[in-house]
């Protein structure tokens, strides 16, 4: 396990930059990680991040479909919020481990 200083705070991350301790996450950290990824966070982004964190804490699989059914945003919108690889980026910014789901 390694550590990284984000926005002046030291957090535990794995070699790919995903949080290994989701409890260390704060909204300020999310803002800084998102900026590294070239994303300016809006309320919509935060709503998705909270949804993913909640799902993760319940031990539920993080799937694109679940985000689409969350009522927060449709799938196209999700790709728009986190361009490229939305689930991986969103998980990284949400301070949770890299999603292990295939769908």
């Amino acid at each position, binding site marked *: 396990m390694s550590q990284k200083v984000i926005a002046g705070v030291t957090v535990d991350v794995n070699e790919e930059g995903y949080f290994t301790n989701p409890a260390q996450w704060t909204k300020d950290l999310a803002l800084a990680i998102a900026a590294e990824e070239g994303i300016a966070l809006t309320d919509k982004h935060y709503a998705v991040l909270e949804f993913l964190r909640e799902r993760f804490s319940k031990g539920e*699989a993080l*799937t*694109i*479909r*679940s985000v*689409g059914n969350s009522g927060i945003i*449709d*799938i*196209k919108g999700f*790709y728009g919020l986190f*361009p*490229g*690889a*939305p*689930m*991986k980026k969103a998980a990284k910014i949400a301070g949770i481990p890299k999603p292990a*789901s*295939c*769908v």
Partner: protein
Amino acid sequence: MANEEFPLKKVCIICAKGTIEDVYAALVMSNGAVMEGIETKMFFTFFGLDAITKKTMNSLHTGVVGNPAMRMPGGLPFPTLLGIIPGVETGVSAMMRSQMDKLDIPPVKEFLEMIEAGGGEVYACKLAMDMFKLKKEDLWEGVKDVLTVGQFYEKCGGLQTQIIFT
């Protein structure tokens, strides 16, 4: 090292069969690529066209006859002779689809819509369409175009591109 230096940038995935397992292999790999930010193009041909034909797309079957990997619930071998009874294939296929739904694997149409929402493109094979006497309007609305094989290859160019036949 080659993995980091030359990551996959584009996949062109061809689906030529119409069973649940063949179609879902193509869909899962395509959606997975889209989720990774990899440019994705799908080409449906021959019986694979069932997966993008409005009438058949959400009621695909799996083969219960001559399929040695088929098992009864609980793991016992599935007797081929059982598979010839009318309705058995339909029942087994419906059961398989409901099992997949529990894992958040969507029905075919919804899956294609997810791929499209992420920027993936879906094409149909002209030759197979002619063979099965299908028209563009018989196909799911999201099908981007009906292409000859040459036209599809034109879309498959570029470095770090793979063509995958499921």
